[in-house]
């Protein structure tokens, strides 16, 4: 794929992924065929900041985990008052990373 297009994608979507993975994503996208550009463009990613806000407000009920697609862990959090409140607090710090991880999995699923 065109380096210009790839850089455009990175600029628009870089915040959705972990910083150390950006070069790897760039490399992979450069190898891609031009026909896949539309598909890559259409991918929707979850914003880590949004999930942090949701985690702060609804983390007790596991809504943050449901939002990023970790339904099982969400149920676990919901049933235990956010892990007796402790897991909810831990997740305030983990949720942004978890969201970026989920975004990466989403991108990988569409690439391979």
């Amino acid at each position, binding site marked *: 794929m065109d380096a210009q297009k790839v850089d455009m994608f990175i600029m628009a979507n870089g915040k959705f992924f972990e910083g150390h993975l950006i070069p790897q994503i760039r490399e992979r996208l450069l190898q891609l065929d031009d026909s896949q550009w539309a598909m890559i463009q259409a991918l929707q990613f979850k914003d880590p900041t949004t999930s942090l806000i949701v985690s702060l407000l609804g983390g007790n009920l596991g809504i943050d985990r449901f939002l990023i697609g970790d339904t*099982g862990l969400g149920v676990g959090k919901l049933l235990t008052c956010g892990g007796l409140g402790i897991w909810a607090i831990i997740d305030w710090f983990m949720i942004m990373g978890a969201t970026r991880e989920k975004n990466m999995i989403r991108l990988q699923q569409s690439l391979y």
Partner: protein
Amino acid sequence: MSAGKNNLYYVLAAACVGGYVWLYLNLSMPDAMSNPGVELCPMKRLTDVPCPSCGSTRSVVSLLQGHVSEAMYWNPLGAVLALGLVILPGWIAFDYFKKERTLAAFYEKTEAFLKQKTVAATFILLILLNWIWNILKHV
């Protein structure tokens, strides 16, 4: 702490250990832990409004003492938690010794099942009803 390859087992094992420790504390010192004692639910502490799963400790404790109807009154979700506490340690041990991933496979299947729109809507409705009941009975 995502549901990665082996992380799932660690998270579930930690949850089981935490659950049993919490249960032990509640059983060994019922007076110190009972209302208004140690209240870990931050939502209830901050807003005085119970969350959907408030009362499940009391529910599991009543269940252990054989008071089934009392357990259902405190919180029906307590039965789900009790079931998890009974089944999960054995299942984790089974997968660990047999070097299989039956629990992870089951987890993924359940997740996919819960993500269906109608199923999710049903469960959300049930949880909301339980929450309303919790608020009304001042758990």
